[in-house]
């Protein structure tokens, strides 16, 4: 048998940077480092900016922990053979950021993409700026800093060439990986200039010449293949679960099945008899609030994953379930409904809802339910760690590498300076891998094995049973409509356990960042609007799931608008546009939204013209109004989230047995200018599938405090035969001088309501409870 191969992880970021660091540390300029000096661990790990309200308001990347940097010395290095290495400091989870971010630098650098290598940054926000890859933020926060990195490095190469030729720098110009002396036609390659460029000063930010966007070679062109594409299709790509270290051991963990539970007693004897099992180790439990901590349990460590899994099966554990053992999803739904039918905390109040509704000729109401969801990344959580000479290294698929570093250090009682977090590719993230509980587990287990390398692998049931779930919610809506059926009074009560409960168990109301996801910041032309948020208590770990609270909010709001249209006998698209009202810019603050996705309300007002336009484009491209055979229907929804505007028109077919298929989805997206249009398309395609998956099949339910779904048979996700067959993405052209919007998440929210509106058009049946599952078969 061959010896295990030692291919530690994918391109070792630090190693490769260090080796080729020809442009060295000669800065004369003080780089603006992250300016958000928030104290305390909680804030340092990306606690929502909304709850830092008392801090001076900072927006965009300035408002994120450790902010941003545009230091070319941190991001760009050039080897003497001309190879340009660009560091990507954001985590790759399928959004294409390892292509997009370096592409921005390369373009301004005038680098030949064929000679560019990408290195992944370890968790080090002091050096690289914020690395929390979440909130659909990477491109809009780092487009400008990355451009400046490239432009600064280009300027240093030009200065080096001018010095070499003893000519004014105004006579030289970087072009496609070489610097040209225009009058003489002399040329020098980047490799030949690398050393001399390294001794040039880093130019001051305000002296940089950025390219005219008309001269972009890569940005906005869609002409580059994915950096990792070839490795992915040949099996060479390295995810966290693929980490291999010399002498590494393999672990799986039996965790308390109920949130807040712990090990009462356990007997390792049978587990230790399993061939290949080496040790059984208890992991200390972490009582709620969960934060990002491991939940504790009993780990089995062996020579391979299978041996550890067999050992775990042989463990005898008695659990102390604790107070959440009574958590039951059926009963909880009823309690949410009860809360939603009574007044709650008023979070927005325009005009006088009660009076206007009382005076309206007609009133309508509806309630919508969205259950817990699990991210179910195809790569379940996994991480490896080793401790040597007082230093700990962790490898894994982390969306928040700095938080991982800080929390591993805290758990091990080490300084964060002695912890290195290597970020591998992520086999899906969707928000689950913002929480590095599995990275901490790996570090704890390595310590228990005297620092030997240990990899912890989560099985699918571990993943589904110990998630940071999407919340569960009831949305109660009421409207008073005028004689034409148009709403003059609008009440929305949203009830859902808040993500804040994962950090503070006393939290019972939605946070500003949850309310600002499509419930209070709905810019409709309705004079009397009242938004209320009754309390809800969490009984499990609630976390961020791709597009977060926008999912239930958009489902309710966009379904209810369609219900009002139907009651008025109006075309749903025309009615939606009328409810949105004329094109105008609405201040988020006027809507009571103090969060605005962390962005400046001046730079990012809510623009109803853009919202109208995506709805119009999606409708036009989908052939809205076309004649469809029986059992077919079109539905529309438009939603603003992550400072982008997206509308979807979904076409469904429902046969006489109630079997649902989705022949086509048209999505119009206005996210501002696109760095990599093909990846914007890909994110929309994926969002359409994920939206269909959660609307038709997705549900995590609890009974006796335990998750009822164990694997992809119980927690079903959409497969190729059930997915939309034809997804057409229509990108509204953007302007690189205008603020950008997010892409990774905002495609999801309009899909479930557009789907259910299409089902109504096709069948007359209104879906108010997700998932749809067999509701059409009744």
């Amino acid at each position, binding site marked *: 048998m061959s010896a295990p191969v030692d291919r530690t992880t994918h391109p070792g970021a630090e190693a490769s940077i260090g080796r080729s660091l020809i442009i060295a540390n000669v800065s004369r300029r003080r780089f603006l480092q992250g300016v958000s000096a928030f104290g305390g661990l909680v804030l340092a790990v990306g606690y929502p900016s909304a709850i830092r309200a008392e801090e001076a308001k900072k927006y965009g990347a300035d408002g994120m922990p450790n902010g941003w940097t545009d230091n070319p010395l941190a991001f760009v290095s050039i080897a003497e053979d001309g190879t340009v290495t660009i560091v990507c400091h954001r985590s790759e989870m399928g959004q294409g950021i390892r292509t997009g971010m370096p592409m921005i630098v390369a373009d301004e650098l005038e680098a030949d993409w064929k000679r560019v290598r990408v290195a992944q940054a370890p968790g080090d926000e002091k050096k690289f700026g914020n690395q929390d890859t979440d909130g659909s933020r990477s491109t809009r926060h780092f487009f400008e800093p990355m451009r400046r990195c490239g432009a600064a490095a280009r300027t240093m190469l030009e200065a080096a060439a001018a010095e070499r030729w003893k000519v004014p720098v105004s006579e030289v110009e970087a072009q496609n990986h070489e610097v040209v002396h225009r009058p003489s036609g002399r040329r020098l390659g980047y490799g030949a200039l690398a050393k001399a460029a390294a001794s040039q000063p880093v130019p001051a930010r305000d002296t940089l010449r950025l390219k005219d966007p008309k001269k972009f070679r890569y940005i906005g062109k869609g002409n580059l293949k994915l950096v990792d594409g070839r490795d992915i*299709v040949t099996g060479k790509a390295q995810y966290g679960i693929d980490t291999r270290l010399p002498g590494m051991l393999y672990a799986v963990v039996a965790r308390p099945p109920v949130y807040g539970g712990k090990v009462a007693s356990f007997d390792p004897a049978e587990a230790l008899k399993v061939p290949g099992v080496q040790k059984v180790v208890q992991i200390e439990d972490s009582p709620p609030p969960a934060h990002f901590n491991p939940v504790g349990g009993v780990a089995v460590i062996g020579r391979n994953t299978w041996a550890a899994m067999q050992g775990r099966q042989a463990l005898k554990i008695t659990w102390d379930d604790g107070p959440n053992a009574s958590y039951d999803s059926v009963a909880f739904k009823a309690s949410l409904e009860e809360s939603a039918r009574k007044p709650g905390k008023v979070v927005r109040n325009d005009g006088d809802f009660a009076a206007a509704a009382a005076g309206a000729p007609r009133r309508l109401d509806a309630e919508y339910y969205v259950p817990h969801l699990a991210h179910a990344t195809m790569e379940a959580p996994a991480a490896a760690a080793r401790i040597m000479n007082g230093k700990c290294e962790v490898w894994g698929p982390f969306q928040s590498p700095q938080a991982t570093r800080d929390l591993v250090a805290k758990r091990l009682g080490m300084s964060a300076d002695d912890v290195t977090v290597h970020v591998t590719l992520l*086999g899906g993230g969707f928000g689950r891998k913002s929480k590095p509980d599995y990275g901490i587990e790996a570090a704890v287990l390595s310590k228990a094995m005297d620092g030997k390398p240990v990899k912890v692998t989560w099985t699918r049931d571990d993943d589904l049973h110990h998630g940071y779930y999407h919340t569960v919610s009831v949305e109660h809506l009421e409207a008073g409509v005028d004689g034409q059926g148009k709403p003059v009074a609008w009440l929305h009560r949203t009830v859902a356990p808040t993500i804040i409960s994962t950090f503070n168990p006393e939290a019972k109301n939605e946070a500003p960042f949850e309310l600002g996801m499509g419930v209070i910041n709905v810019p409709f032309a309705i004079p009397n609007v009242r938004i209320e948020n009754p309390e809800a208590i969490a009984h499990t770990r609630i976390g961020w799931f791709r597009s977060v609270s926008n999912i239930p909010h958009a489902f309710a709001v966009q379904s209810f608008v369609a219900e009002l249209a139907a009651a008025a006998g109006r075309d749903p698209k025309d009615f939606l546009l009328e409810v949105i009202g004329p094109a105008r810019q609405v201040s988020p603050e006027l809507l009571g939204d103090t969060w605005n996705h962390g962005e400046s309300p001046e730079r990012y007002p809510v623009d109803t013209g853009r919202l109208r336009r995506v709805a119009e484009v999606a409708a036009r491209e989908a052939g809205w109004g076309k004649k469809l055979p029986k059992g077919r229907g079109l539905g529309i929804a438009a939603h603003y989230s992550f400072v982008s505007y997206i509308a979807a028109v979904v076409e469904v077919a429902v046969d006489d047995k109630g079997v649902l298929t989705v022949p086509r989805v048209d999505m119009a997206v206005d996210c501002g200018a696109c760095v990599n249009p093909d990846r914007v398309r*890909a994110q929309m395609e994926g969002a359409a599938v994920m939206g269909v998956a959660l609307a038709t099949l997705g549900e995590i339910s609890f009974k006796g405090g335990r998750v009822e779904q164990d694997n992809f048979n119980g927690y079903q996700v959409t497969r190729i035969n059930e997915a939309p067959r034809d997804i057409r993405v229509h990108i509204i052209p953007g302007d690189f001088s205008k603020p950008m919007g997010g892409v990774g998440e905002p495609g999801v929210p309009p899909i479930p309501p557009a789907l259910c509106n299409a089902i109504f058009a096709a069948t007359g049946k209104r879906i108010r409870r997700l998932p749809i599952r067999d509701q059409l078969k009744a």
Partner: protein
Amino acid sequence: MIPIEINGRRQNIDLPGETPLLWTLRDELGLTGTKFGCGMALCGACTVHLDGQAVRSCLTPISAAANKKVVTIEAVGNAPVGKALQAAWVDLGVPQCGYCQAGQIMSAAALLARNANPTDAQIDQAMSGNICRCGTYTRIRAAIKQAAKQGGTR
């Protein structure tokens, strides 16, 4: 000792016969291209070829692979069909996170090996055992067709 030919190389595996092929490949032989997704043959991430047939390695004990030929994602490109699929996958930008794509390509390669020009329905049938959580299905279908077209003109 269980003899298995893996990617053209004969290996003698010294593990209990019930050990799944998946963990043998990944943990013992370092062939990490084959992915773990569910452990119950529900997601297809672990798909490999066993004597040319697509199988889920998570539920295939190594005893069942004795004296047989296993091909994984690391070697599927040695055959024209695998190579054409890999090229189409890159060309059309199929992968998002990419984690499931090894299994997708292995299933697609087994499909094209027995049916050089599959219909949409045949693609759906052959590929419905492979989950992609990122939702790359439309591009997977397009890439299989592109690879099939190239196969036909070769």
